[in-house]
């Protein structure tokens, strides 16, 4: 695992974008790593792109603001356009192909492209697309363990039914990546 991982999660309001970043930070905390999470705040979360930033590190984190992420989890087309060129060389793009059309082949970065929305829909809750994406992301990067993520979901989500579907989605996402 890298010593420092900076990830941006982006999509539109209602896709659980802020939750996604928060959950990554919570997992990092559970694994006793330094972490910081920063949401995009204000009017912009009510339309267009919402995004959140999470940093996981073995050192204290100076600023939680990310300009060039190591990874980006991108859940819709406008966010793809906003962040595609910001990812560091050799970084990772986790892309929701259900809502991003032809993305071309971004140069110099790794790409995981899966229909997260459709997968979540087939699991019974379209809102769990973010967890499918998270599963794919942590399986690929190993920044935190899937086991920790499952525990974090238990802690974060109050509704028992939603816990089940979110865990299911996370595991599904992880299973789709080598």
């Amino acid at each position, binding site marked *: 695992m890298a010593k420092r991982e900076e990830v941006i999660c982006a999509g539109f309001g209602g896709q659980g974008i802020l939750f996604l970043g*928060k959950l990554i*930070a*919570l997992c990092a*905390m559970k694994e006793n790593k330094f*972490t*910081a*999470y*920063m*949401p995009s*705040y*204000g009017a912009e979360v009510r339309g267009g792109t919402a995004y959140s930033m999470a940093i996981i590190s073995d*050192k*204290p*984190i*100076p*600023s*939680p*603001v990310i*300009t060039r992420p190591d990874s980006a989890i991108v859940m819709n087309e406008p966010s793809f356009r906003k962040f595609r060129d910001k990812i560091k060389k050799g970084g990772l793009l986790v892309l929701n192909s259900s809502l991003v059309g032809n993305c071309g082949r971004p140069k110099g970065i790794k790409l995981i492209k899966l229909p997260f929305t459709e997968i979540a829909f087939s699991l019974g809750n379209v809102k769990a697309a973010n967890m499918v994406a998270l599963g794919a992301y942590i399986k690929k990067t190993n920044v935190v363990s899937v086991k920790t993520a499952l525990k974090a979901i238990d802690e974060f989500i109050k509704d028992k039914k939603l816990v089940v579907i979110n865990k299911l989605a996370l595991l599904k996402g992880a299973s789709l990546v080598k």
Partner: protein
Amino acid sequence: MKKVLMSGNEACGEGAMIAGCRFYAGYPITPQNELTEYMARRMPETGGVFIQSESEVAAINMVFGASLTGARAMTSSSSPGISLKQEGISYMAACELPAVIINMVRGGPGLGNIAPAQSDYFQATKGGGHGDYHLIVLGPSSAQEMMELTVLAFDLADKYRTPVLILGDGLIGQMMEPVLVNSRQSLVVSKKLTTKNWVLTGCKGRDPRIVKSLWLNDGALEAFNRKLGEKYEHIKRAETRYEAVRTEDADIVFVGYGSVARILRAAVARLREEGIRAGLLRPITLWPFPQAAIRQLSKKTKKFVVVEMSMGQMLEDVELAVAGNAKIEFYGRPGGGIPHEEEIYQRVIARHKVPKQSKK
């Protein structure tokens, strides 16, 4: 002790709960809404009072009223809202009423933007409202400190009968970090709180009390101002707080507070790796300002680099403290710009005439 992932806004609210805050009034403004919402949830749970006021002006005056009864009281806002509160803050300083005021600073002047900034330093430390007064001003640098300094703020407010302002910013407020939620006992707090023998509770069993700020008789206000002045001098002697990181042998000392100090800390570590003797002086109390500490350093340090998220406000206090003893450079990012440690590092490297390290 429990480790919880918390935003600075929430940590501040939790600090207020730990300190026994009984009254909160506030008005929505970004980027501090999470704090108001936190208080809306938590205050009723503990039998405290939460009011969403009609304005910032009303909020600070409600706090004035609650404080009169001896209750620990707090209000919070962000820059434009803090401007509105200045009237009430001046009256509270004049009536010697304790209270805690949170400013999660955003870019200004005017409506500005909602991004983090440090451009309210002058307003916070040089008076803000009308009249001859000071507030104790604390500059937290993490969610953890947001909680701990909020507790301290309540203690200092009671101890000195004065409003205390916490100068955070959008970054400190919005960012979530792991926070160790302490029990009150484990926090560094002054234990001896003054007896509140001035509160208005109805005059049962004692003479009536008057809490006021009008001094019309000849010389009365002058005498009162001198009394306040003595209090401020005492606070300067007793309550100045700062953190010094590797300043003992430093050739370059960074001075920065709040969010900026986090970034400077990382820059110092990196510069040290390159063999550059850098250090950081981080004021924790912005008023009283750690003037003596900086003056002391200025006698052996060659250069100070002041970094602020503004066009240079604390810079003036550093200049006063250094008093010409050393060179001062300033680097500012106003209007919501947040300096990156790389920026700071590169600037220093460039000016220090050290051959640039090969980059990966």
